[in-house]
């Protein structure tokens, strides 16, 4: 009986090993199952999800206008002081003083891409961009000014 057990043990072990080998062999002979994405080569076809959080951007329309009122809600919402909103006072046509955006400083190197600033923005002025290739040679280039030079706030955004 001992011999029988001994042999059946060996047979069972061999079978379990063979099942595993069958699986790896199965994939070995089927090159179509390969899932590798050849990243820098597939850049043209690579499409990130719409909601992917790659960086904070401020969209400008064709008249070089944005929607930021300079309310600093994003600055307050940011957990790591990534955003610094510098405001100035502009004169409206009615000769009233009005707070407006001067510079929107964005430190990409400190950003954790949590999306809280976009969530907090009351006028939808900032968005999450899909760009994820952020590597640079000089760290100082990661401090960005989001509003384009000469841009103005869009009409009707309060």
């Amino acid at each position: 009986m001992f011999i029988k057990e001994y042999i059946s043990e060996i047979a069972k072990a061999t079978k379990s090993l063979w099942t595993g080998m069958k699986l790896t062999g199965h994939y070995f002979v089927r090159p179509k199952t390969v899932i590798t994405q050849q990243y820098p080569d597939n850049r043209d076809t690579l499409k990130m999800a719409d909601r992917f959080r790659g960086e904070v951007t401020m969209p400008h329309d064709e008249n070089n206008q944005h929607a930021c009122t300079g309310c600093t809600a994003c600055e307050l919402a940011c957990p790591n002081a990534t955003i610094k909103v510098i405001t100035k006072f502009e004169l409206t046509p009615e000769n009233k003083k009005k707070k407006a955006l001067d510079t929107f400083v964005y430190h990409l190197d400190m950003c954790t891409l949590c999306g809280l600033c976009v969530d907090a923005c009351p006028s939808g002025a900032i968005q999450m961009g899909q760009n994820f290739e952020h590597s640079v040679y000089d760290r100082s280039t990661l401090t960005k000014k989001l509003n384009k030079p000469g841009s103005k706030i869009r009409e009707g955004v309060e």
Partner: protein
Amino acid sequence: MYSLHAITNSVQNWLNARLSSTWVLIIESLIVIVLAIALFAALGLILVWLERKVAAHMQIRLGPNRLGPAGIFQTSADTLKLILKEGLTPDGADKFLFNFAPFVVMIVAMLLLAPIAFANGFQIWNINIGVLYISAISSLSVIGILIAGWASNNKYSLLGAMRSGAQIVSYELSAGLSILTIVVLTGSLQMTDIVQAQQNGWWIFKGHIPVIIAFIIFIIAATAETNRAPFDLAEAESELTAGFHTEYSGMKFALFFLAEYINIFIVCAIGATLFLGGWMPFHMGNWTQFNHVMDFIPSSIWFFGKTFFLIFLIMWFRWTFPRLRVDQLLNLEWKYLLPVSLFNLLLVTLIAIMNWHF
């Protein structure tokens, strides 16, 4: 049958006609050394590339694919990198032994190349105790590993080396016993005789089930002797980081790496010679037509084809199985492989005596 005798003989005759016999010997030795080193380099590059490709496709990846077609130059680039790297020697290491160990392992691997018949009439040294020579020399590589582990002055290395010692000493037994089955059947220790004995069929087909069992045991023991997963306890990446070669870098590491692959090639070549007929083509009984077609395929292709088949098998093991634990490793040898192979040897002896084999 196509033979390489013509080439080797013509080289010898050409040299004999022009030089004294001493110079002939020296020049022939030089040719052999150059060929052996070239074979080493080529094998190293091809096997590493092959392993990476096999692994990649089993793991649903592509593997190296940037340098050259299908990445075949990747290993050359890696070798270049290893040559350019600084060869560090740790402060507390035994400097002489530390630098000596990779060469021991390498020299052993080179010595093992001598009696292997690569093709019909193409063999470095047709020694009449070929099989004995191989089993004697192959157990020397453990000394290199022990030296490396001890001299590194690293606890991981030491543990790895000790494991390797226990492992190789015990697996040598079942490897030797399974080799003996073929020696018993052939009645000769000479490699050429063993190959010639398989002219009418390979031993694995002629020798009934006992030889198949011996073949399986040989493959397991060979995997263990070359420290390959699932028996890679000497380097056990997740336990001992890199085991006995933790402290090695640059070219010294490359020598260990190369020796590992050369050892795989050699054990697989021995397996192919003993069980699968070496360079002998595949013959089927009295199908003369078929046998004739088979004879047209050069004997070297037969040899390398069989060897690479076995190498693929060993790679297949590596990329499928988890690693054994050190006590289970010894259990497997002493409780399963050794009794089975002893009993098996008895059966084979019976077959040989009664002439039951085909």
